[in-house]
Structure formats: C-alpha cells, structure tokens
C-alpha cells in the first residue's frame, strides 16, 4: 500500500490539490444536460486490454475481496435490432423479456466497467478503483463452430463515437471470452476426443491407408529414409551398448537434428513437405516397430515433428500415452486461456459482493448471455439462474424511486446517470447553501502509479467511468436511505445491511416499463414512483393489426373501429411502427367480433367490403390481425426485419406456431359469423352481399343503389350493436 500514491482526480491539478485527498466525488455540477464534453476530469480509470489482463485480474481479485460493493456498467454495440423491438410501456412482462433477450443476444458487449468500492474507516471514505475492460468477441478456439457475428446499431455506434469511444483499441486489443457454457462444451469435446484416441490406441497409426508410391522420386525417397533410419537406430543401439545414452557422437547430420524427447533419443523432422511426412510415417509403420512418429504443439502454436526411439513396446505405449496427456493438457490450457474476460465475471460471482448498476437489467442480461450461457426462455428461469450467480444486485435507478427526498430532488430532471451523478455528488467544497442535500460521503479514487500508462482520465459513457459514477450515486443514495457507513467493517459486504436489504434484487426492467423485476422470484411488480402514460392494459382485449397501408395512422384506426363498434368500444390504439398497431377493446368479446368481421369482409369481395368503415384498415389486402399471443410469438422469433409487418410475415411463413393456427381460426370463424347473421336477421348482410355479388356479375354496378348498400351496412351495424349489448 505504501508503494502507491493516491492520485488526484486530476493529473493537471495543482500540487496542492494532490495533497488534499481526493475530494468527494465529482466535478462542480455540469447541469443536467447531456451536452457537455462529459466526465469528471481526471478520474483515473484503469484501461485493461488483452496485453495487461492477467496483471489487472490479479490486482482486481484483491480489490474485489476487500470491497463493500462493486459498481458495474456495460457499453454495447446496440440496443434494439428494429424500431418495433423497442420496449413499450404497455408490453406484457413476458413480451418485454423477449425483447430485452433479443437485444442481449444480438448485440455485442464492447466495454465492461468494474469499479470496486472499499470502505476505509480511518479516512471515513470509500476508496474506488475504476477498471475499464475492452471486449471483443473474436474467435479464440480453432474448432469452435459457433458463429461470431454481432449486430451494430448505427445510432449506438455513432453515439459511442461522439463520446470518443476507441474502436481501434476495442477491435485490436479487445479481450475475448468464452461463456461458461461454451467452455464446458469445448472441454467436453476435448475429453471425448481424447477418450476416443485412448481407446483406439494402439491401432491409430495403422488406421491411415497406405500412400501409394506414385513416382520414382517417392520410391527413392522412401528407400533413402529407410536406410537413414536404420543407420540411426543401429547407431543408437550400438552406442547404448557401449556408453549408454550419448547419441552426441552419432554422425547423422545432414537433415536431422538429434534431440532428446522425454528421455528418449529422437530426431527432429524439419523441412519436409506434408507428402514426404506421410511417406516417412509409412516407412516407420512398416519397417520400424521401435521408432515412433510424434507430433506435438510447441509454444507458438507450430507443429514439431519427431521420430523417437523406444526400447520396448511397453515403453512405446507409455510414451504415446504421455504424449497424448500432454496434448490434452496443452489443449485444456488453450481453452482456459480463451476464457479471457469471463474471469472478471467469475471473480465477481465467487466473491458474492453486492453488484451495483444503473438501469442495469439489460446489462445483467448481456452479462448472462455473453459469459454464462444462452438466455433462458422466460424471465422466471432467468431470475433464478442469475440469482444463483449474483446473489445481490442493486439498481440505483430503483433506489432513487424509493426515497421521498431523492424523489423530490430528481423530479422534473433527467434520470440519466450523468445528470443524477452531478446532482447527488456535487463537489465536497460546495457551500452549505443546499441544506436539502445531505453532506456527500467522501469517495477517493486510487491508482497505481507504477503503471500510469494504462490509466486515462475517465469520460462519460466509458464503461469504467460509468461504473464509478454508478458507485458514487449509490453511496449517496445509501446515505439518504439512512445507511451508516461509520461502523462498516473494512471487508464487509454492504448487501447484508438491514436498511438496504429490502431494495436489493429489485431492478427496473426498462426505463419505460413502470415495473421492477424481483430477481429472487422472477416476477414483475409495479414501481411505485413511476407515472404511467397509458391505462393498465388488459391483454385479453388486445388485437394486433399489421400490414395496413402506411398512410393509415393510429387515429384512422381508432376512428374506423369506433364507427363499427361504437365510440366506447376502444380503450386505446398503440402504434408499434408504421405498419402495425395494438388495439385494445374495452370488452373481451369485441376481440373475436373484430377478427370475425375482418375475416367476413375479406372473404366477400363486394361493394360492402369496399364501403365498410373497416376498409380503411383492410385496404391493400395485406392487413392481418391476431390476438396478443401472436405478438409474443413474433417477438420471440430470432429473425429481425426492420418493419413489424415484414417480421410478422416472415415468422408466419417460417414456423408452424400458434400464430398460424390463430389465423386459421380466424379464417374458419368467418363461417360462424355469417351463420350468426342468418340466425338473427332473415334478410341480412349475407344475402344482401350475395345479391350484390350476383348483381355485379350480371348487370354491372348500376343496378345496386347506394341505398341498398347503406341499408345492408346499417343492418350489420345494428346486429353488432345487439351482440355487444347482449353480452
């Protein structure tokens, strides 16, 4: 510890400032906006890339062990793969999870910020060590079949570029990773291969077919090799008899280098082509029972080929086994080293410290999908799994909403991390005018002066600095919640604090959901502090409509449905994108009525379907409708089209799911609709429709008066009115 000097937040700051311990936590308030060239100047953030991962990891291990909590943050290559995949306030919990899951699976994590905070009772301050890890998912294992492709959202990349994200470092120096599932799979494969080889031994060498000696050159080469190996072996045997293992005086120089391999005399085979090597192996196999061809990997991943002399058959078997074990070990080592940045996650998981993030549900999903394994299909499963790995997670976004004082403070202000940071963590030296805010808890940043080169001063939207800000905000929020740090033990985990306990593992699922996920149960519950913009949705009453023409606006949909079902029939129309909308009826029956009516109108190609109010929506013939379950299925699909309608069609045509049967139901329903009409009104829509149809065919449209059509429509309308009223 003595070897380290506390670095001041600013390297440019005057020496005096260096002495005065690192201040509380932030620059003078920069206003709530996003406009500033972000960042508290001079927070030393350790940059970790491929080159210094091992060292940084060792250091981080000790830091995390001592920490009271750890702030984390992720920078990703994008958030939504299509506009309609944005999370909406009125999404059902399972749909929201599917949308977030899609995002976590598709996009890459480019930076991981980890910032352990240690409580120092002597100084009455938190000491933090922000780390910024660059991540790049490149292929590390040679035979790894999984495709390494990721999506980038143009606006997100542009956003990162605006904050000077260093893409060159990321793509050149970024640290690779293997998720736990991938590692397990790779090792599994390794062991089965190894097992196969063991059991197949000693037949392996005979397995390969004979190489036909095609040319005179081949034959001559083979003969020559035979003679040379013979000479060599005889020399060794005779030598052995004379003076034991000292092959040094054996004259066998021209192409071979004499070495020892695992206490056996051996020669290196350098400078042969693969065809020649094949011939050599064949010679050995056919003529020399005591010479073995062995191929090993050396350090720099090149192959080393040797011919090794063995005394006895047992000796040979032992040697081969030895070689295979070595091979297995080296391959295991390769897999282990490919784990890369996941060591950080493993470290955080094994220490069971409190993890703190800001709006971090998506981050946690990303962490799971990149470093643990494929994301489970439901929120419940996910929560239970993540709870086993990270037992304590706190979200500052949620903590902000549980304290009234903080609520008042941030009301009407941006809830983004940087603005909350500047609000809650103003410089310590600010005058005491703001009596409403508590005195901030002091936070210091510690940096190791021996490795200054890898520190940069943090900037907004750099994961390491964001993790630091999150931690600072968290500390201040804890103070508001009445958590006393004074009697906190140096290595104590904050997660066990009584005042915090009830807020832990509650994460807002996204910024506009108005719900928090309870990670210990996997259920969502409404967030008390959230102001809802839409009335609560009854999902059974919702119809999903897509494929209408782009000129149709949500208001048009509302108008024409109100014309048919009555003004009070609709609760809301929510536009997903320009090609789709969710329509919520006030009564559940209206859902089926609507689907039936739509099918009926589509099946009759007459003037009625043209003049019917619903024709605004149905125009173009591409309009589809389905219940809410279809929406979930479409969101679940791994496809991603830009427009919702295209996506829905693609999902529809690729898979045999409920959506399809849903639509079959709709198609079948048209029949029931018509029979229902027959039942109640003797000369009703259907017959009228038939009449018009024949009219069209026989005499042309002159014979149908406008009155007829209107009358027919009127009938239909009253009929619907009746049905609605009766139910």
């Amino acid at each position, binding site marked *: 510890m003595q070897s380290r000097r506390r670095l001041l937040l600013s390297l440019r700051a005057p020496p005096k400032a260096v002495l005065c311990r690192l201040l509380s936590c932030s620059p003078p308030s920069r206003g709530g906006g996003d406009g500033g060239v972000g960042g508290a100047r001079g927070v030393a953030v350790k940059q970790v890339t491929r080159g210094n991962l091992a060292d940084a990891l060792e250091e981080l291990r000790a830091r995390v062990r001592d920490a009271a909590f750890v702030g984390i943050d992720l920078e990703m290559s994008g958030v939504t793969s299509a506009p309609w995949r944005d999370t909406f306030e009125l999404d059902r919990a399972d749909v929201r999870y599917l949308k977030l899951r899609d995002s976590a699976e598709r996009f890459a994590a480019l930076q991981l910020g980890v910032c352990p905070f240690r409580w120092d009772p002597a100084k009455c301050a938190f000491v933090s060590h922000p780390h910024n890890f660059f991540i*790049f998912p490149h292929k590390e294992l040679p035979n790894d079949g999984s495709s390494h492709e990721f999506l980038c959202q143009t606006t997100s990349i542009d956003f990162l570029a605006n904050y000077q994200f260093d893409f060159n470092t990321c793509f050149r120096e970024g640290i690779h990773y293997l998720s736990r599932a991938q590692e397990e799979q790779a090792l599994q494969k390794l062991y089965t291969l190894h097992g196969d080889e063991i059991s197949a031994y000693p037949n392996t060498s005979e397995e390969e077919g004979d190489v036909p000696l095609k040319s005179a050159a081949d034959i001559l080469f083979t003969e020559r090799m035979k003679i040379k190996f013979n000479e060599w072996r005889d020399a060794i045997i005779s030598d052995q008899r004379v003076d034991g293992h000292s092959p040094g005086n054996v004259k066998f120089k021209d192409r071979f280098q004499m070495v020892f391999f695992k206490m056996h005399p051996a020669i290196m085979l350098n400078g042969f082509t693969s065809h020649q090597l094949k011939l050599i192996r064949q010679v050995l196999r056919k003529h020399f029972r005591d010479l073995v061809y062995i191929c090993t990997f050396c350090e720099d991943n090149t192959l080393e080929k040797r011919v090794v002399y063995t005394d006895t058959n047992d000796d040979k078997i032992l040697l081969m086994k030895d070689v295979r074990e070595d091979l297995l070990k080296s391959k295991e080592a390769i897999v282990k080293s490919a784990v890369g940045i996941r060591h950080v996650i493993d470290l955080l998981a094994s220490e069971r410290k409190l993890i703190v993030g800001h709006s971090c549900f998506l981050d946690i999903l990303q962490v799971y999908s990149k470093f643990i394994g494929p994301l489970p299909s439901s929120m419940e499963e996910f929560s239970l799994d993540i709870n086993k790995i990270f037992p304590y997670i706190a979200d500052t976004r949620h903590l902000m909403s549980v304290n009234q004082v903080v609520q008042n403070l941030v009301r009407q202000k941006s809830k983004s991390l940087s603005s909350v940071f500047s609000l809650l963590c103003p410089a310590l030296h600010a005058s005491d005018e703001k009596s409403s805010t508590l005195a901030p808890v002091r936070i210091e940043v510690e940096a190791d002066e021996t490795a200054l080169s890898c520190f940069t001063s943090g900037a907004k939207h750099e994961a390491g600095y964001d993790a630091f800000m999150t931690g600072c905000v968290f500390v201040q929020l804890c103070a508001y919640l009445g958590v006393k740090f004074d009697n906190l033990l140096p290595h104590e985990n904050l997660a066990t604090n009584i005042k915090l306990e009830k807020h832990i593992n509650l994460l807002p699922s996204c910024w506009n959901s108005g719900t928090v996920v309870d990670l210990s149960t996997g259920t969502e519950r409404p967030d008390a502090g959230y102001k809802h913009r839409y009335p609560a949705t009854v999902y059974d009453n919702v119809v999903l409509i897509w494929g209408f023409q782009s000129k149709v606006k949500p208001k048009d949909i509302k108008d024409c449905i109100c014309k048919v079902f009555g003004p009070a029939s609709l609760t809301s129309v929510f536009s997903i994108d320009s090609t789709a909308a969710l329509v919520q009826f006030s009564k559940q029956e209206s859902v089926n009525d609507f689907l039936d009516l739509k099918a009926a109108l589509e099946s009759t190609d007459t003037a009625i379907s043209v003049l019917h109010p619903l024709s605004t929506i149905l125009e173009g013939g591409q309009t589809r409708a389905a219940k809410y379950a279809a929406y979930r299925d479409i969101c679940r699909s791994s496809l991603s089209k830009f427009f919702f309608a295209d996506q829905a069609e693609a999902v529809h045509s*690729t898979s045999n799911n409920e959506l399809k049967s849903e639509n079959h139901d709709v198609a079948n329903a048209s029949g029931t609709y018509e029979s229902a009409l027959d039942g109640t009104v003797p000369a009703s829509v259907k017959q009228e429709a038939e009449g018009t149809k024949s009219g069209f065919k026989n005499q042309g449209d002159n014979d149908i008066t406008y009155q007829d059509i209107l009358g027919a429509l009127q009938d239909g309308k009253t009929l619907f009115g009746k049905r609605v009223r009766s139910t």
Partner: protein
Amino acid sequence: MLMSVFWVYRYNFHLFPRDELRLGMPSYSFSCQSSYLSSMALSGFDFNMCIYDGISYLSRVQESLARQKIFIPHIRQFSPSPSTSVADSIFMNRIKSRIEHWRKGYAEPSTTVDGSLVSSLRQLLLGCESYGSRPSIRIDVCSDRQVQLVLEAVNHISDDLVSLVVPDKAGTARAVRVIFTNSTEDKNLLLTDIQKLEDEHNLKFRGFREVIDLLSSSQKPIISYNCLIDFTMIHSKFVAPLPPNLKEFMCSLRMVFSNVIDISHMWREIGPLRKAKNIQAALSYLQRQYFVPMDVEIHQQDANNSVTKSGENVLRITKLFAKLSNLLKISPNSQSQSDEKCYTVEEYCNIFYPSCKVKESDDANFSNESDTNRAMSTDNVVFLWGFRETSVKELRSHLAGLHHVFLKDFELKLLDRSCSALIFHSSDMATELLREISLESPSLSDFFSEGLKAGGFDVYMKVCRLGLWDSDLAEALEGVSSEPATSMPSGHGTSEIYWNSSLMLDLREYLEC
C-alpha cells in the same frame, strides 16, 4: 519503343452508414463478423477514422424515400398563371401592398431616427424577420395557388426581392419568405448562398453516393477483380435493394455501370495466364514473361498518404489492366484510332465470375484449377442431415447399409458439419429417394430411426430465400421442411446449377433475351 504511362490518382474513401437524417437510413443496424473485423484490425484498418469521420450515404431508392419526408425552403420558379379570378387579384393586391410597405422601410431608409422600441414594434407589426443579415418577411399561404400568386406579386414589385417557399413537415408549402437584398451583387450573393445550402442538403442525402453517381455518369470503364460480390454490395448500398434474381440484378447494374471489366476475364484471354489464381500471380507472370511498354505512375498528390491494403490492391489492378490492355491491343480511346486490329474495351465488359471463394493470397503460385464444369440438374441433388459421422468416407459407408439407392454411384460433399449434399448421377435416384422419404416407406425405416433427414433442392432454396443464416444449415433445413410445402411460390422449376462454379456470367447474354 516509347514507354507509355498511365497516371494514377488514388482515393481512399472512409464510409460509415451514419443516420444523418434520423430516418433509420441508410441502415438501422448492421451485422459484423468478428473474425473479419479482427483481420481488418490486423492489417491496420483505422476503425476510429471510419466511424468518427466516415462519409454517410443513401442509395438512390433511399434518397427518394427521404425526399418524401424531409423538406427545406427552396426557390421555386415562377410560372405566370394563365387566368386570375377576382378573388385572386384581391389577394395579390393585398400581398403586394404589404410587401411594398415593408420594402419601403429598407429601400428608402427614413430620415427620422426611430427609437429601438419603435423599430422593434414596427418589425413586430409587419411580421418582419431576418434571413441571415438580410431583412425578410414571412407571408403565410395555405395552397399552392397562393404560392403562385405571392411569387407573381413579388415579381411585379422589384428585382431586389428573393422569395423562398417554406414547406412544412409533410412537404406542402406553408409560407413564402421574401428577402430583401441591397443590390444586384447582394442578390447574387444570396442566391449562391441558397444554392450552397441546397447543395449541402443534397450532400447530406447522397453523401458518398455522389462518387458512385459520378462514376456512373462518366460511363468510363470500371476495372475490378472478382467483382461480382463488390457490385452486389454497391448495388444494395448505393442503388437499390438487390432484385430477387441474378438476371434482374445484371440488368439493373448495367443501367448504372455500363462498362465493368473483370480483370481476371482479361487475363484468361492470354493463354499461359489462364490459370493465374490472383492478381499478384498474374502480375508477376506478366513481368517475367513479357515486356510491356506501359507503366503506371502515381500522382504526387497522395504520395504522402498512408497506403491501405485496398489502396494497394487498386493499384495492382490498375497496373495489371494497363499491361493487359497493351498486350491485348486495347487502346484507351479506340474510337480515335484507325487501327483495325484494335479491340475495344467493350469486348471484355460485363462478364463476371460468380465464384467468390477465391482465396486472396499473395503467393504467386499457379494452381491447377479444374477446367471441367459439369452442369447438372437441381433434381439430382439431395440434401442430407441428421448424421453424426464426420467424414465423407464414414458417412458413405454408413449410408450404403441403409438403402439401395445409396449403393449406386453418387457424389457426396459435406457442406458444414451437420449437413451434406448428395449428387446423384441420374435424377431418378434422387426423386425416388425423396418420394420414398415423403411416403415414409418401410424400406427406409433404418434411415429414419438413425435420425437422418433429407430434402430436395427446393427446401434448400427456401432456406436461402428466407434468410435463415443464423443457425446450422441442418437446423434451417429441418425448420423449413417440417412445415407443409403449401406456401411455395411457383415460378421456379428445375434449373441447372454448376457443380464447379468457375464459370462466367455474360451480362450481354442476359440483356439479349
């Protein structure tokens, strides 16, 4: 012999599909292959430059879409209206007097010095604004007819007024802005300013596509190497989404670039070069074997710029083209020469090689490229998946025991680790196999119990069309074949594919039919 020289001007454009107009264009998101990014990073590609300062672009189709959504004030040419109603002339007179009154304030500055309050009050009353440093007045209109009338009125008043039509978000004219200029020079200055604004706006729309448009309109020959994949990229990014089939693509491309030359087609004309595998090989062969009095010199302008890999490649292509065209007696401007032996560049135009798997390596070896293309019907192909064997040999021996069709001669090719293609020598075998599979005939019970699945070329085509690239081929085939084949669109029957795809596509062939 005189050494002729081609002067080369090299440009390296950095592109990034930035969403300049906030419309989700040119692309909402894009996919990255991390191994490819790694190799780019290794070769020193500057991602920061590309992303921070890369030029954005919109394809022609996207531009026209964007133009329907974003409008800026513009100058509209005044066309004298044929007839004027009474209402029109009243409206016009009112506007005219209003503008005249406003103009008088600037054209004939009053001698009395108003207080600032008075002048600001007057400005407020008259609806004055300023356009840059110049005074202007905004006249609200509610129809195109009114726009015409206002323009006409302005036209009558004075030459020192410039009017701009201001559209709203939907593109309909909402107001006319009349700007007062001091003098003719000032007016010209204003007009160039407006023009500049419009150009900037256009640049925002087209961005890098200006370059493509420039190349396209110049009608000069475009030289490239193995360029089918490049041109599909160019087409989709700068022209329009790719058409559903190759033929339409070729036609569409031809409209944009009429003269595209694949350099590898040119060197195939020279006997010994036929087997050259890459540019480097061809170039070094030419240098060894021929003396070509033709060289390429780089213009000094970019000599100090760092050379990227693609820049290097472009230079090689140019060099090779220069030498080849000399050897083949293609003159750069054949029209002007009377030499009847001279071939035109057009002879080599628009011939593409569909194989995109050519390894780009720098070793100058010639390899034996098999010259035998066998055309075969897609009926002969069966896709097989669900096996666990990892080698062709194992799989073949395994299959032989399962059904009698597998005893016949067929070729087997592993497509990935989960799927293989069987190519039968007669279509009967393939159809028999597929039919028996669809009927689930008992002779195939071993086949099914092993978990093997098979499908015809149609299944594969469907997979490709749906774009199911994200999983194993076997997964995709499984997904598609498990659903009833009802939604298969018609319009594709049997077609011929080439097993060894080193053949060429001649654009002219497509255009003649």
